[in-house]
């Protein structure tokens, strides 16, 4: 077996009998095999490593997810806007014999008797798994929404 053939098996992580025999006789391949095994061990141990903490970056992360979730809820709960009824005022009946020009039909929008009072802003509070972090979300039905 050549060194190249052995190295293919080293990187593949599966050594056959010929490769094992080659390792006992070839210092270069033996050292490469040791190096690749140490790398494999280091890579595998990364799975258990504690990830570095970037606490300050939790805000945009949480706010963005909270905002997306809120948008879903908001779009699902938004009241259906019912169009206002339209009143049509018919012209006075006229005698058929007289050639009177036809008046255009006047269309008048009905006005509600009492306009609705302005809606109260909605305050949504998000609790996170961090007791120090609570997100308040102020939703103004007219102006939009704002994080506090």
């Amino acid at each position, binding site marked *: 077996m050549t060194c190249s053939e052995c*190295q*293919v098996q080293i*990187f*593949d*992580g599966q050594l056959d009998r010929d490769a094992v025999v080659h390792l006992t006789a070839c210092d270069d391949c033996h050292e*490469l095999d040791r*190096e*690749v095994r*140490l*790398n*494999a*061990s*280091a*890579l*595998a*141990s*990364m*799975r258990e*490593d*504690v*990830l*570095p*903490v*970037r606490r300050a*970056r*939790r805000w*945009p*992360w*949480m706010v*963005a*997810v*909270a905002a*997306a*979730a*809120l948008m*879903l*809820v908001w779009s*699902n709960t938004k009241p259906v806007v019912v169009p206002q009824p339209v009143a049509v005022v018919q012209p006075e009946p006229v005698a058929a014999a007289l050639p009177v020009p036809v008046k255009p039909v006047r269309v008048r929008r009905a006005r509600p008797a009492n306009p609705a009072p302005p809606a*109260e*802003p*909605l*305050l*949504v*509070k*998000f*609790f*996170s*798994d961090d007791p120090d972090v609570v997100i308040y979300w102020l939703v103004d039905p007219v102006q939009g929404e704002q994080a506090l």
Partner: protein
Amino acid sequence: MHAGELTLPIRVAAESQPNFEELMAAHQQRVLRTAYRLLGRMEDAQDAAQEVFLRLLRNMDRLDGDPAAWLYRVTVNVCNDQFRRKLVVVDAPERADQQPRADHLIEMDERKALLMAGLATLAERERAAVVLRDIEGLTTREVAVILGVEEVTVRSQICGARMKLAKYVRGAR
């Protein structure tokens, strides 16, 4: 609590998206860890993880099959996009304790730092394959499914990645 106030936990979308919170809780560490290994920097990894979970939220109703595989796939795609967009800087390794350490542990930390830097030099397919296979510990078949390629392709990518990483570590020492 005053009038109009709602008290909602972060699982605000639970009614419309019943599994989002559970999926996020179950997979956020995995997604963050994978993104960190692919990008080399925790801040970039957090941005990527945020994008992954926003995509999950948008695609909850279309999610089909194993969510872990879906999340791995999206994480790899998001990280590849992010990797292409900007120069990736690899974090220096952090240690919580500052106690004296044995030589072999110091050597292991140095090796990990070199491997993290080496990962950034790989082609994105190789990097994704080696992160999923050697760090996440998935099988070659699972990696092939996630990356949408044949198993033989994954094996080839992993061999290439291991060879380049070995060369990188040797060259840096």
